[in-house]
């Protein structure tokens, strides 16, 4: 990988790693100064990441995402930005370590794939930009919802076991986590729906068919159905709290499976740009 391509991948991963270190340190000690340092580190990491992606796009004359690596890198960045928004608004720094673990996982996967070398003609379609943006926003919504769900379940367990530890001091209340999960899931679902509609229009233009049972399409449909089901279920009054969190995580597993699938099956018609790996 060239040096210029390092920044939005391994470079940003390393910076997120450093931020995670600070967040964990704050989580354990709780000192305000350490917390501020952690936030500053994360802002710097996100800024650098954004800069790296912008430079990559300008250098090639075609902006990310073109390829799974870049898409994941963008998902990670927008997840960080959503998290930073939550933190700035509610001072919910306790979620930081949870969010960063997931972000770093995305970044490692993104970095092993790396940027795309050439841009497929399909990606030059006008609809591609909105389609990709919607999907990326959807993914980061789901990522945040998964982070919140994990935090919810962890805190729920501690409260039920009557062993309140550090988690309890640092995390928002169960009700607060539940409300945020709800909003994040809804955000993800709305953007996924938009992204899928745009995607099928794009498919029609490129291949003449709206739907072609391509594996990527199938797994996305499954994700959509699972989140749809999770959202329907939570309307039921007895389906609250830890069950909602658990169903969110089940739905999120299809996102993870989807990502792994595309990175394994390059033969899918719905592949992204040719990758460097």
């Amino acid at each position, binding site marked *: 990988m060239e040096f210029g391509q390092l920044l939005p991948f391994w470079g940003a991963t390393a910076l997120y790693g450093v931020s995670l270190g600070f967040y964990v340190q704050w989580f354990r000690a709780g000192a*305000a100064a350490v917390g501020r340092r952690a936030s500053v580190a994360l802002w710097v990491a996100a800024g650098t990441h954004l800069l790296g992606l912008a430079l990559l796009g300008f250098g090639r004359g075609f902006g990310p995402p073109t390829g799974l690596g870049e898409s994941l890198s963008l998902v990670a960045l927008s997840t960080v930005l959503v998290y930073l928004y939550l933190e700035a608004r509610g001072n919910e720094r306790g979620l930081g370590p949870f969010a960063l673990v997931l972000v770093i996982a995305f970044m490692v996967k993104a970095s092993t794939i790396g940027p795309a070398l050439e841009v497929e003609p399909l990606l030059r379609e006008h609809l591609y930009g909105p389609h990709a943006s919607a999907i990326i926003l959807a993914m980061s919504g789901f990522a945040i919802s998964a982070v919140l769900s994990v935090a919810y379940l962890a805190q729920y367990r501690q*409260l039920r076991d009557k062993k*309140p530890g550090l988690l309890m001091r640092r995390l928002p*209340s169960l*009700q*607060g986590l539940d409300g945020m999960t709800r909003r994040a899931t809804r955000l993800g679902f709305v953007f996924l729906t938009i992204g899928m509609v745009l995607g099928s229009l794009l498919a029609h233009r490129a291949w003449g068919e709206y739907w072609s049972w391509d594996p990527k399409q199938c797994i996305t449909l499954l994700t959509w159905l699972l989140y749809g089901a999770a959202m329907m279920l939570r309307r039921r*009054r*007895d389906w*609250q*709290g830890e069950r909602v969190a658990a169903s969110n995580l089940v739905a999120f597993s299809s996102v993870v499976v989807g990502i792994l699938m595309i990175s394994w099956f390059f033969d899918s018609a719905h592949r992204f740009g040719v990758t460097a790996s």
Partner: protein
Amino acid sequence: MLGQNHRTAPVELREKLAVTPEKRDALAEMLMCDRFITESAVLSTCNRMEVYAVSDDPHRGRARIDGMLAELHGVSSSSWTDTLYFREEDDAVRHLFRVASGLDSMVLGEGQILAQVRDAHDWAKDHALSREVLHRAFDEAVACGKRVRTDTQISEGAVSVASAAVSLSRKIFDDLAGQSVLLIGAGDTGARTARHLQMFGVRDLRVCNRTRSRAETLAHELNASVVPWDQLDDHLSEVGIVVTAVHSPEPVLTESRVKAALKEAGRRTLFVIDLAVPRNVHADVAKIPGLFVYDVDDLQKLVLDDEDSRRAEALKAEEIVDDQVRHFVQWYRARAAVPTLNDLRMQLECVRQAEVEAIRNKLGDDADLELVDRVTRRLLNKVLHCPTTELKRRVLESDPDQQLRDFRSLFGLEPRERG
């Protein structure tokens, strides 16, 4: 510093010595007029009454304050002398800093005392009682208290069963104002926890008791509504928090009862605080998903755990206090050198002026005179520079009084009382 606190005196005596606003003004008058006391401040809270004073003669100052308090309260001082503590010099400063940091409080690390220290300072300033030394001491005490609270976790965690119940509630629910609380039983324990929950925002409180009249009395006191004993189940499904404190050999809430009530309303999250012994809530209730059941032992354990961690944090806090005290004492000691240095400068200045005067007639014009004046002045400053810094350094070391005496005799200065 002369004072009395919750550790040295029982509440009856503290009441007697409490300084009410009127008495405080009278005390200010007395402190103001006393010639042994150059600066003073009074810190009076429900747990402590302390007089901070700067005096050239600490022991006489102490006796004077003792007398003032006796006069103020109209009792003989012997009746409380053994409950008073007296601290001098560094120890007095350390005491103030520890008080401001909450290290001397009944509840370790509590936050109210910091505001009270600040108020005491403002009051002393307004009455022109405190000057340079106490200004600085109180300012630094407040800074120290703030630093302790941001750098350590001394003020985190629950201190009582009631506050543990509140902090758990706040971990389950976002905003207690939106939660309804059902209090089962009209005894003191339950009422205390209910009051605590109200303090943290709970508005809708319902009291349910077998004997309705007792429920009514308590409900009136707490500004709550009354629930008849036979409608308990209906309300059980409407509230988010249940506090039980009923003397009953049999559990009041059983699994089937709670389950049925919740099923009816389709609710799932319920926080049950069981304060009674024997327990009012059957152990099986805790198995219902979405329910959080804590009994007195669970809460007590949380309080003890938090107490341990507070104590561990207190060690860190003491280090911060040490650091801040050292800083203050350095400033204070260096300050002791100032009068001596002024004396020296004055003496040398006299010599200089006399010498200039002596050669005045031998000089030509005013320009020459001015030149000589300037040169000698600069010479004086240069000569004084080294002894000045050296003395300021030496007074920080052992026995500043001895250092000052030596310095004075070295330069042939008249001996002078400190201060």
